[in-house]
């Protein structure tokens, strides 16, 4: 282990303070009893209890959760199948290159371009079917589109890592395609699938741009609600809501870290 120079330590601590100072500020003012303004007037938790009485916020929280869960499940299933299809078959170099480019598009273009493309495409598809009115279904489709690519990339790297030996052994013992998939591949792939699914879930919770472009009046999510609220002026309720979302993020991050670390030890 190397020792750090004093400058390195100071700079690092200042950088961490720079990352956390604003977040701590929000948390502090979420327990401040002043109704308006940013003057400390004493401790209270009433803004948190008020959150659970606000129908708008409850509905936004529900939408956020439905959006994240539905899109994650679909994207994980589709992404896993796609990854197996890409990695385990003798595709020509050109096909492989083509598939690779398609899969990397959502990773290397700014998300606002995907959002703009979806708005225009949904706008035209609306003539065909009313499913494509702005709203939750459109948001789910948008989220799946970028999640799918990330899940497929994660699962594919796991496929490469587990190699071919176990599958060869299973074939030698006369495993059928279906048996091989169910009893050999999926159990071996599970850590990759779960990691991909967690990534997809967090990407969905984290997304603002795709939701902002494809949402309808009935499908507010928490990030959209907060964004709209800031433009109307900040309130202690928004501090409380933001703090709550941050706490949930902390729990999710710590849980994911625990999971990946325990898998590494295996």
């Amino acid at each position, binding site marked *: 282990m*190397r020792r750090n120079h004093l400058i390195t330590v100071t700079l690092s601590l200042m950088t961490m303070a720079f990352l956390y100072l604003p977040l701590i*500020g929000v948390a502090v003012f979420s327990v401040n009893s002043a109704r308006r303004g940013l003057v400390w007037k004493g401790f209270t938790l009433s803004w948190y209890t008020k959150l659970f009485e606000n129908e708008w916020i409850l509905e936004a929280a529900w939408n956020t959760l439905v959006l994240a869960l539905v899109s994650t499940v679909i994207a994980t299933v589709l992404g896993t199948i796609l990854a197996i*299809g890409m990695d385990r078959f003798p595709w020509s170099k050109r096909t492989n290159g083509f598939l690779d480019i398609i899969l990397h598009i959502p990773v290397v273009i*700014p998300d606002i371009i995907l959002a703009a493309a979806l708005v225009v495409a949904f706008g*035209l598809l609306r003539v065909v079917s009313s499913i494509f009115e702005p709203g939750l279904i459109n948001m789910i*489709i948008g989220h799946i589109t970028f999640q799918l690519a990330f899940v497929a990339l994660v699962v594919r790297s796991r496929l490469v890592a587990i190699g071919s030996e176990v599958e060869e052994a299973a074939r030698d013992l006369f495993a059928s395609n279906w048996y091989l998939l169910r009893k050999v591949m999926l159990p071996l792939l599970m850590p990759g699938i779960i990691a991909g699914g967690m990534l997809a879930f967090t990407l969905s919770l984290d997304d603002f741009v795709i939701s902002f472009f494809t949402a309808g009046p009935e499908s507010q999510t928490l990030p959209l609600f907060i964004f709209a609220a800031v433009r109307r002026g900040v309130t202690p309720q928004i501090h409380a809501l*933001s703090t709550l979302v941050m706490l949930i993020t902390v729990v999710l*991050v710590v849980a994911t870290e625990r999971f990946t670390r325990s898998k590494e030890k295996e």
Partner: protein
Amino acid sequence: MSNALLSWYGELTTRGRLLKRGSALLMPGMLWLMLFLVLPGLVLVVVSFATRGAYGQLEWTFTVENYQRLAGFSLFGWTSDYLIILWRSVVVALVTTLVSVVLSYPLCFFIAARSERSRYMWLTLVIIPFWTNMVIRAYAWFLILAPEMPFAKIAAFFGFIPDGMPLYPNAFAVYLGMVSMFLPFVTLPLFASVERIDWALVEAAQDLYASPVRVFTQAILPQTMPGLSVGIILTFVPAMGMFVVPDLLGGAKYMLVGNLIQQQFGSSRDWPFGAAISMGLMVLTMIGLHIYRRKGKEIEYV
């Protein structure tokens, strides 16, 4: 050719049968990506050549007018407004990436030098903002820079801003927000490389009286290139299209291309122009990535 027997992952089969099964597996995912990624992308290209009707509807009269407008040509002559916004977006994305890299190196060295237990704690502390919703983090800056908070008061004391005014909207607030937004995007992948640095090489360089600059460029930089590349791409690409931070902290005075696109799909309801700007952003991002990849390769050869 496709009838010849071959052994593939232990299975005795023909190429044709394998590809048939493979296609069936590729089908659902690829169909989805074609339908909701590639097709909308192509539609966006087509729409960028269409015309906006009087009520914001699309009219299929094809013209290059949207691109001319983006380049600044209008009925009233030439203005640089849109080009300035495009240029500003590139500069903001580059500066954000650069500052994030400069701050990430010491932070990575610092975390790498911790004991194993506290290293995970520090890493988790970097991961938490990484996954905290962008809107919340931008809003947090909005709060911290408010007139009642110490920073605005100090700035007002020194006469940078009028008394009782917030520290936004301005370029400074945008940079603060952008760097804090994207710093973890560089730190995390960079750390994966810093953790694996062979310090013997660094010490060898120091023993041979290399200047600190040479130690960095020739002993540390090449070893951390893989993580740094990922970090730079993860920062530069989304920074180019960012619109939450400039919207909350930059206002109309410091618009970026993301805000411009959002405006066309929102209040202005001018899809063809919005599509044309999106194409402009796409081209700029691709140029950026291309230059970077070429430069990146040169660095590897050094």
